[in-house]
């Protein structure tokens, strides 16, 4: 499990699940993700990530997920 953190949020990528289809790479509005030499996805520009969660929603193999470090109180959401 690779972890890419920025502020309160982090991207978790499970390379063993990734089939390297590239759907997340094409979906990312910020160009954060790219396929590495092994054909697995990695976040090479995590600083640009806005944590919209589109990659997570569209990953067919559940390899990528967006998490919060600290849960925001439900009353604020």
């Amino acid at each position, binding site marked *: 499990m690779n972890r890419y953190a920025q*502020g*309160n*949020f982090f991207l978790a990528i*499970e390379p063993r*699940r990734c*089939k*390297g*289809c*590239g*759907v997340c*790479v*094409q*979906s990312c*509005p910020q160009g954060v993700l790219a396929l590495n030499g092994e054909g697995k996805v990695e976040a090479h520009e995590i600083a640009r990530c*806005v*944590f*919209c*969660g*589109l990659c997570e*929603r*569209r*990953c*067919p*193999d*559940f*390899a990528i997920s967006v998490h919060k470090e600290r849960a*925001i109180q439900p009353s*604020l*959401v």
Partner: protein
Amino acid sequence: MPNTKELARHEEVQKRFTGAHALCAGCGIPICVRTILNAIEEPVVAINATGCLEVATTRYPTTAWNIPWIHVAFENAAAVASGVETAYRALRRRGKVSQEIRFVAFGGDGGTYDIGLQALSGALERGHRFLYVCYDNEAYMNTGNQRSGATPFAAQTSTAPVGERSFGKSQRRKDLTEIVAAHHVPYVAQASISDWYDLAVKVRKAVSVDGPAFLNVLSTCPRGWGHPSDQSIKIARLGVETCYWPLYEIIEGRWQLNYIPEERLPITEWLRPQRRFAHLFEPGKEALLAQIQRQVDADWEKLLRRCEDLPPAPFPKREWEFSSPVGERQREIWR
């Protein structure tokens, strides 16, 4: 009640369908299934027809499903769903079950358009409360890309090959969404994997109606359609933008468009990236292309006339406008 965005992030619903299944890279089916299961709040029972989804997610002794799941045969997903739903109602009447449970049947286009149509029609007519989802990848992809009732005109498949005397499938696809709408069911909709929010909202509408509901979801197939696996979402989007696959819903018999493209793209934009249509771009095939464009235009005009008594429903906001930490931080600051 959580909104659709919050629900999709909910831990419990996230684990209903898991990865490490054997579906191809870039397949549209898991995107469709996870969006649908994540959009339902209540406990879910899944019923599966034979197809890519069933074969690739339940290889013995493993499974990708964390919810009650049943598969019987190719043709009877809707019949099984009606049996399960009836058993649930009987148990509920006797007080043995107190939960609200939702039933979702998944079938491919082969198991819905062709083989399972009779069972689906019966279940819709009997009025069982369940949601039938057809993931439409436009051929029998599981067994090697044979033509089905959903295969579009002029598409190349293994049983409708391209050669000197043939140009792929020579018949038009049937319009299953209209066939289902003719059963007078409370909710029928057409969606695409490219617009997850639109799909999630439609699922929430579908499970909230008291009666049968039907969703026809365009699901891309990189192997069968012959496009790079990373283009799956883009090609599904092109199907929507060219009005080949319009997004609309039929609520209690009222037709409503969800999305009208500002500028309609020509159908060649949808055909060109796919290898199954590559023969249409050879010289001398302009007449076929014009014929496909005329078919799409006629279908779109018909749909517009059907929906004209109602203004178009506002299209849900684009996906990247949701779930951004910026918005959450702003809300925090405003408090």
